[in-house]
């Protein structure tokens, strides 16, 4: 089949699951993810004539999907603030330091070479589980920064956050994920 020809009757079967998985990892909620995928297909159908054939159908659909996901995050911003609030989750690693700022519970090595972490599918699976335990706000920030790889200035501009608040929130998010991953790693060690 010519990769550069559009065939909308095949979209759902060919790309539906792919687009859905991609969205679910970012948005978490299954109904909202479904809706975003559906809107992506509809937007693509409307823009069908503009498809220049410069990319494959799949890349083109993913491009539209990414915009739809960002729109979703922007919409949330209007109803809920993304900024740091006083009652926000505290730093989960706070208790790991004594009054002088020294570690109380000393971090132990995970025994994992960071460069080779991506070979560790099991650990990646743990991370996906741990991400779902984050609050929605922190999860979104982590997705934009670490999964999408957006620069912090872009995130601040999109979501109206001051840089220092963003860094504080990302720091807390990472600490929370670190603790959660450690629980999994520790369980694995004691179980076998």
């Amino acid at each position, binding site marked *: 089949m010519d990769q550069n020809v559009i065939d909308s009757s095949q979209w759902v079967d060919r790309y539906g699951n792919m687009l859905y*998985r991609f969205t679910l990892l970012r948005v978490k909620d299954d109904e909202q993810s479904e809706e975003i995928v559906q809107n992506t*297909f509809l937007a693509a*159908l409307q823009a069908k004539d503009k498809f220049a054939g410069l990319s494959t159908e799949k890349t083109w659909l993913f491009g539209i999907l990414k915009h739809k996901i960002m729109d979703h995050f922007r919409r949330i911003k209007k109803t809920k603030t993304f900024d740091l609030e006083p009652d926000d989750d505290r730093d989960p690693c706070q208790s790991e330091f004594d009054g002088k700022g*020294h*570690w109380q519970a000393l971090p132990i090595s995970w025994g994992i070479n960071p460069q080779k972490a991506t070979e*560790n599918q099991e650990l990646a699976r743990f991370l*996906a589980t741990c991400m779902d335990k984050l609050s929605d706000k922190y999860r979104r920030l982590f997705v934009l920064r670490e999964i999408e790889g957006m620069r912090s*200035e872009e995130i601040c501009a999109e979501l109206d956050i001051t840089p220092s608040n963003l860094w504080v929130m990302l720091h807390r998010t*990472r600490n929370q*994920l670190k603790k959660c991953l450690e629980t999994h790693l520790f369980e694995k060690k004691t179980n076998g």
Partner: protein
Amino acid sequence: MADSFREKLRDSVLNFFASTCKDTTQLVSEEMDHRISITKQWKIKFHLAICEFCRHYKEQMETLRNLAGYLNKEGSKIGNENQLKSSAKERMKKLLDDKEK
């Protein structure tokens, strides 16, 4: 006189670079998000050179980042079990079909 001056200088240099583990973890994380000042960079270097625990922390942060990058890869099998419900698929097909006409 000269000696006490040297001591003072030494102390102030040490104090300037000294940071607690708590501060260092914050700086390590901050450095992942934007370019930090040379002073902050040296504070991290200075601290990591003498603190094995914060070195572990930094490695863990790097592991976290690389794992997240992996989740983004198309080839990653994570979440493969998540599929669109067949009812949703049918609905979308019908919608596309109707609009196409």
